[in-house]
């Protein structure tokens, strides 16, 4: 037996998942399922798409229409699905490497077009599946197997990137703040346009060991200590929170949605014929 949420939304014969003990991805995947469940979406109208990486194993476990695609290209496949069938609720599950390195171009252009896709980025600051190489969100001075003397790169703030590129809903949640993350994912799905949720995960196996972060519990507690909600931060002077990671909803706006605009062109020619 398992909980109703799990048995109703997951492929039970595929569980338990392959993620390491204490991996934050399981918490985020459950949060996504909970958000879909709370919104009472028709399961046959939900399509979950992923690329490659630890995060991208998720659609294999989720009992919806699912697609596991090539590295970095989840948003490209998802764009095709959404244009072919705009009635589908298309949700992309991607990782920090998948989405912001090899798939970075797809991210900025899906954001720019404001196509009705919800992207949940499982951000563990490392390439876990291939053995702990640093990613575009690995913090400066952190260690990875390809940064044995400390990372000299500066990390992306993916929320700011998506915001600047034109996404209409942008938020950051964490595996520690799972209840808030569920609410954020619900709102991101409800947004009629491109939504980006930066979901902070933990990788105790690679990022944790390389950077002496301790157990998964220690890493989740560190998330609690290093984050501050944007609503709280707004009431404080900058020096009180300048070293903290902001979480919460950063942007929730309305702009014309891409597939709706595309349909208007089709309708125009149908009339002329």
């Amino acid at each position, binding site marked *: *037996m*398992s*909980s*109703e949420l*799990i048995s109703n939304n*997951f492929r039970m014969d595929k*569980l*338990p*998942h392959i*993620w*390491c*003990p*204490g*991996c*934050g*991805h*399981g*918490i985020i995947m*459950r949060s996504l399922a909970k958000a879909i469940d709370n919104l009472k979406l028709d399961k046959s109208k939900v399509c979950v798409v992923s690329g490659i990486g630890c995060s991208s194993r998720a659609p294999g476990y989720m009992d919806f229409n699912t697609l596991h695609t090539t590295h970095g290209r989840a948003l490209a496949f998802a764009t095709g699905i959404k244009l072919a069938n705009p009635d589908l609720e298309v949700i992309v599950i991607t990782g920090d490497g998948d989405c912001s390195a090899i798939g970075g171009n797809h991210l900025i252009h899906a954001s720019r077009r404001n196509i009705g896709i919800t992207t949940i980025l499982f951000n563990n600051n490392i390439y876990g599946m291939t053995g702990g190489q640093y990613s575009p969100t690995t913090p400066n001075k952190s260690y990875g197997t390809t940064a044995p003397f400390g990372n000299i790169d500066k990390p992306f703030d993916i929320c700011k990137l998506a915001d600047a590129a034109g996404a209409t809903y942008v938020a950051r949640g964490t*595996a*520690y703040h*799972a*209840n808030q993350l569920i609410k954020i994912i619900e709102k991101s799905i409800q947004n009629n346009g491109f939504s980006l949720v930066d979901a902070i995960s933990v990788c*105790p196996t690679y990022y944790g060991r390389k950077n002496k972060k301790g*157990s*998964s*519990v220690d890493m*989740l*507690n560190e998330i609690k200590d290093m984050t501050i909600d944007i609503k709280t931060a707004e009431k404080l002077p900058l020096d009180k929170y300048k070293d903290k990671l902001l979480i919460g909803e950063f942007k929730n706006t309305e702009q014309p949605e891409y597939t709706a605009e595309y349909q208007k062109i089709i309708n125009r020619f149908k009339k002329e014929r």
Partner: protein
Amino acid sequence: MSAKELKVKIEWCKGCGICVAFCPKNVLELANEKINIKDKDSCIKCGQCELRCPDYAIYLEVLDDGK
């Protein structure tokens, strides 16, 4: 509110200890690297364990006959 009962699916537990750490009432422990309910009577059914279990191995079951 329907009655709830704390349940464990031991085959799925990977022994990460997240549920043990975030239980506010010290209901849980790890025994032989798997989850064990050591003090069921103290459980307040808050669901913190279920919320953050990455492996869906602990949950609150809603009982049918609950009022």
